[in-house]
């Protein structure tokens, strides 16, 4: 089973050429942070309520993508809420992103290709080698969005993270998205870490809007 950060990275790639979809990098950073925290919650290492994120067990999971964040939470002398840990963990989003991509390449799901642009600038693409995992994630998401079934915790998490990155703008046509919007908003609320990710993304968007206005 893939971890949430790997699933998000798969969804962020354009199926046609393995390039990254144009989504706000600040949203992706928050979503990757949330992905790690959600995996730690499902591994029973942390728990959350409306006021705080609680360390349950500091025993490493053995997963190199998750354990650095678990260690930071364990080292913290003060209790903080999930919002704080999404912000703090997003400082390490570049490492999380690269580790997730490296693992997908190692698993034989993606291939890594480097392009040169104007002979100087390098860009990396990750074309899909085996599309099974990505199809499975998309099927899970669509299965929940197009029905009134009670979603399971993994489906709730991936829908909240996808929405935080703005991925549904790429996964669904505008009429489909308009139809699914209510269900997306309903499902993403079910997870408190997902709510915190959405709050952080909204705060950053608001800051960017204010900056843009002050630049005018």
């Amino acid at each position, binding site marked *: 089973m893939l971890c949430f950060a790997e699933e998000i990275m798969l969804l962020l790639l354009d199926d046609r050429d393995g390039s990254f979809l144009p989504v706000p990098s600040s949203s992706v950073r928050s979503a990757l942070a949330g992905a790690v925290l959600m995996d730690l919650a499902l591994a029973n290492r*942390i728990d959350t*309520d409306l006021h705080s994120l609680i360390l*349950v067990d500091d025993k490493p999971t053995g997963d190199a993508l998750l354990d650095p964040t678990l260690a930071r939470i364990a080292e913290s002398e003060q209790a903080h809420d999930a919002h704080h840990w999404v912000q703090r963990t997003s400082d390490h989003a570049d490492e999380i992103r690269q580790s997730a991509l490296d693992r997908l390449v190692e698993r034989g799901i993606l291939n890594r290709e480097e392009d040169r642009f104007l002979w100087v600038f390098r860009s990396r693409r990750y074309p899909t080698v085996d599309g099974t995992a990505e199809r499975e994630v998309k099927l899970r998401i669509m299965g929940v969005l197009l029905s009134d079934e009670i979603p*399971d*915790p993994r489906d709730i998490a991936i829908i909240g993270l996808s929405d935080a990155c703005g991925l549904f703008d790429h996964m669904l046509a505008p009429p489909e998205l308009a139809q699914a919007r209510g269900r997306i908003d309903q499902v993403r609320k*079910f*997870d*408190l870490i997902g709510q915190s990710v959405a709050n952080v993304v909204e705060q950053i968007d608001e800051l960017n809007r204010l900056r843009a206005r002050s630049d005018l």
Partner: protein
Amino acid sequence: MEVRMERREGALLAVPEGRIDSATARDFESKMKAAIQDDDRAVVVNLSQLSYISSAGLRAVLVIAKGLWRRDASFALCALPDTVREIVQLSGFDKIIQIHGSEVEALDAVGN
């Protein structure tokens, strides 16, 4: 954790006591799954004796509700203390799970 179980008016009535958090959520979930029989058509969980529920507890409730939804059986929560009601409402669980003020109301609703 303690979960009192009884059958009332054709429904399984469960009354968990104390906290449902990361330490007890799995125990709560396995006790509920063990008590639910194949021919149960309705389950009511009375939360009046609960002092706290965390995300892990909400996930356990969700997994139980999903299992029952798949077999077309009814599921309801009732008698939520204020602190529990707050997190249940903020998580939007009240939009997909029946919530009732009292045990009588819940049993009546799932029975119909």
